Every structure is written in structure tokens, then in C-alpha cells.
């Protein structure tokens, strides 16, 4: 994986209601909405269909390019393979028998697999909407609203702050290794797998010692500015009532759908 592939953030700037909404409202709402999606029982297609409506509306409201959102929602696709065997192993009426090997797909298995795929896709779409409309720094600010331990939140802020610094240092080391690993067509460069793993291990070890040195310097600089170990954050602006009401209405809608389904 290249640096670009690992560190591409999903935020896309646009002017929209969703972009303006406070991360302290958006983040918990997104998590609870995903919870509501996951609560749908296998084969509850109608409930899932209704749950998809606000997501579609959200994509419209966000003014993000629809193709971009849909493309990004394919992220979880490789994981689908972990669920495919369930179509064969769930007991039920056999529908199709795979030729040669003789496994049969049952109706219950197919419903189960379909539900997993739809629920996962809708959840990923909610996640895409959240990460595309919220800048990373705002998302982290949203974490503070969840009343996590300050030490953890401060560490996460710090990690994000130095992610690109340390990441770029790592990328320079990878570039340096690649420059020393010339390849000739038909002739592989480098030694055995063990040797290659050791090179990467030494790179990681060296990056660790450099990171520790950097950490010491950062700590000294923070101390010089009066840091006493207590993480401090800027005061949050007050929550906007309209956003809280909208989030409440959305979650009430999801709960109501489940109540109707189960009655």
C-alpha cells in the first residue's frame, strides 16, 4: 500500500446543511443509525427500504457527487467473501445446487446473506456521508462529546497531528529502500523473504527510534509552553437546537420502523 492509499482522507468540501452540522450531533447520530440498520432482522426488506430513504435524502442534501459516494461505498466489498459461505451452510429449502461440488444454496441462507450485504452497504453509506461531510479535526472534536477519557482523546488528537509527519518520514524510508532495490527484467531483486522482512523490520525499528526522539522534542517544546500533563481543548460552541431536533426525529423514525415491523 502506498502512502496515498493509506492516508487519503474522505472529507470533500462543499456547502451544504450536512457539512455545516455539528460533528457532536452527526457522529452519535451516525453510530445510532447504523445500530438501527443492524437491528433489522434477516429478510426485513421493507424496514431496510425505509431506512434507506433518509440515507438517499442525506446524499442529496450533502451535494456530494452521487457516483463518488457510491464508489466509496464499495470499500467493504472484499469482506463480503467472509459471509458468502453462510448461503450454503444455513439449513433451509435447497434452491440451487452448485454443479461439480454439490453444495446447495438454501432459501434461508440466501435471505441471510442478502440481509448482511444490504445492512453492511447501508451502514457503509452512512459512514461515507459522515466522513465526507466532516473535516477530520471536527470528527475528533465530536469524540469529545462522547465523554471518552481525556487521555485517550488527547492521544487521538496527537496521533492525527503527527500522522502525516511520521507518515512522510516512513514514506521517505520506503523510497530510499526502493531506490536501492533496482530490478532487472526477469531477475528479482533482494534476497529471501526472511531477508526482506528483516529489512522492513529494521526500517520499522529505525522509524520507532526516530519517532521517540521526535516525541521527546515535542514534549520538551510543550513543557516550555507550560504543559503540565492536563490536555486542554478550546471551548465548544453551543449546540444548535434545530440540528439536535433533526437528529432526534431521524432516530425516532428508525425506532418507529422497528416497532412497526415487530408488531
Amino acid at each position, binding site marked *: 500500500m502506498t502512502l496515498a492509499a493509506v492516508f487519503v482522507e474522505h472529507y470533500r468540501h462543499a456547502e451544504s446543511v450536512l457539512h455545516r452540522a455539528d460533528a457532536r450531533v452527526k457522529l452519535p447520530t451516525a453510530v445510532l443509525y447504523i445500530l438501527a440498520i*443492524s437491528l433489522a432482522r434477516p429478510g426485513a426488506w421493507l424496514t431496510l427500504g425505509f431506512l434507506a430513504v433518509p440515507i438517499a435524502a442525506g446524499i442529496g442534501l450533502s451535494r456530494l457527487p452521487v457516483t463518488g459516494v457510491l464508489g466509496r461505498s464499495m470499500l467493504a466489498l472484499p469482506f463480503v467473501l467472509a459471509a458468502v459461505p453462510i448461503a450454503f451452510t444455513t439449513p433451509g429449502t435447497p434452491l440451487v445446487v452448485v454443479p461439480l461440488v454439490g453444495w446447495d444454496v438454501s432459501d434461508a441462507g440466501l435471505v441471510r446473506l442478502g440481509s448482511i450485504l444490504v445492512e453492511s452497504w447501508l451502514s457503509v453509506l452512512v459512514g461515507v456521508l459522515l466522513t465526507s461531510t466532516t473535516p477530520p479535526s471536527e470528527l475528533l472534536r465530536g469524540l469529545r462529546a462522547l465523554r471518552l477519557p481525556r487521555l485517550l482523546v488527547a492521544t487521538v488528537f496527537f496521533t492525527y497531528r503527527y500522522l502525516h509527519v511520521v507518515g512522510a518520514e516512513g514514506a521517505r524510508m520506503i523510497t530510499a529502500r526502493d531506490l536501492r532495490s533496482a530490478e532487472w527484467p526477469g531477475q528479482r531483486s533482494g534476497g529471501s523473504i526472511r531477508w526482506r522482512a528483516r529489512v522492513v523490520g529494521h526500517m520499522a525499528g529505525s522509524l520507532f527510534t526516530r519517532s521517540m526522539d521526535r516525541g521527546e522534542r515535542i514534549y520538551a517544546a510543550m513543557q516550555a509552553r507550560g504543559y503540565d500533563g492536563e490536555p486542554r481543548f478550546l471551548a465548544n460552541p453551543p449546540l444548535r437546537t434545530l440540528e439536535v431536533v433533526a437528529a432526534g426525529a431521524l432516530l425516532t423514525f428508525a425506532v418507529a420502523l422497528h416497532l412497526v415491523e415487530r408488531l
Partner: protein
Amino acid sequence: MALAYQSAAVGLVEGPALHIPDGFVSVPVALVGYVLTAGAIALAVRMTNRQLDERAVPLMGVTAAFIFAAQMMNFPVAGGTSGHLLGGALAAILLGPWAAIIVMTAVVGLQALLFQDGGLLAMGVNILNMGVITALVGYAVHEALGPVARSSTTGAALAGFAAAWLSVEAAAIATSAQLWLSGTSAPGVVFPAMVGVHALIGIGEGLITAAALAFVRSTRPDLLRLARPAMN
């Protein structure tokens, strides 16, 4: 089915192997994951505050950024696949288990939050598997092999390798169990597939971890003492 899993294996070796997306874990499993993770983090925060005092935040933040960067360092294995680090065991051996849990929580949490590597509802189980279990298993195995590790360079490499390999296997077993309990995968399929694939991934993890530890031990042995503040 065998074919499906073969291609799943390739995807797993290359990609984010254990990051479970939303929709694949059931709500009870996800909630239990959150509860267990929250407990582990609460304990880790308490222990870290006691051991690292005001250095904690910059030290752990930079280490988490380091784990992020180290995860992208890969090397070609065979057939277009590549090996790379997860880092839980390495962080635990270098920083001690409690700081490592916070560091890996920051890594896995940011991966889910910023890069959508793993779901939001599944974040509890993902942190549990890749952060808590890898750190605790890696540290425990390395401690248990302490006499071997101190005996010679080869012994130290073996201890590092064993800790890293077992930490990855433990995470794979936990992931399989969660997928099974969620009704997403059949146990007869998911356990052999995940444990088998991660037996291979674990070799890369083990070799890289052992080499990284050897490098730190020979160049900056003072940093290894971070894991044992009582001996400072």
C-alpha cells in the same frame, strides 16, 4: 467455496485483514465488544497515567503515528501478495501493554473514523481484536519467554517472533468467533480459513517484529526500558 476462500485469502493478506465492516457483526456481539473494549481502555488509562505521567500524551501519540506509518511498510512475499505489520505486539513489547492498548485504540479508531477501515458499530470488536488482544497476548508471550529473550540474540528474536505470531493468531481467532456468533460465517469455514491465512500473515508479523526489536535493542537499548518503568 474453496475457491472463494482462496481469493478471500489473497484479499486478506494484502488488505486490512481484520477490520470488520458494519453489518457483519450482530448487535449483541458489537455491544459486548464495546463493553469489553471500554473496560480495557479504562484500565489502560489508569495504569498509563500512573506509569507515564505527563509524558503520556506526546509519547503515545507519536507512537500511534509510528504504528500507522509502520503498517504501510510492506515487502513482497509471493504471487503479488505482500506482508506488513499490524504492530500490536511490537507496541506492547516496546511500551508495555497498557500504553500499547491506548496506542492501538488510537490507530484502529482513527482508521475507522477517518479512513473507514472497519465499521463504526464494529469499532468495539475491532479495537478489541487488533488493539487489546494483540497487545495483551504479545506482551504476555514475550514476558513468559523472558529468560529465552535475555539469553542470546537468537533467543530475543525467537521471543519477539513468537509473541507477534501468536498475537496475530489470537486476533484472527477472536475475529472468527465474533463472525460465528453473529451468524455471519459458519464455524467450520471461518475458523480454518482465518486461522490458516493468519498463520501465514503472522510469519511476516513475527519476522518484522523480531527485526525491529533487534534494531532498537542494538541502537537504543534505553528505549526498551519504557515498558518497565519500575526498573528505571
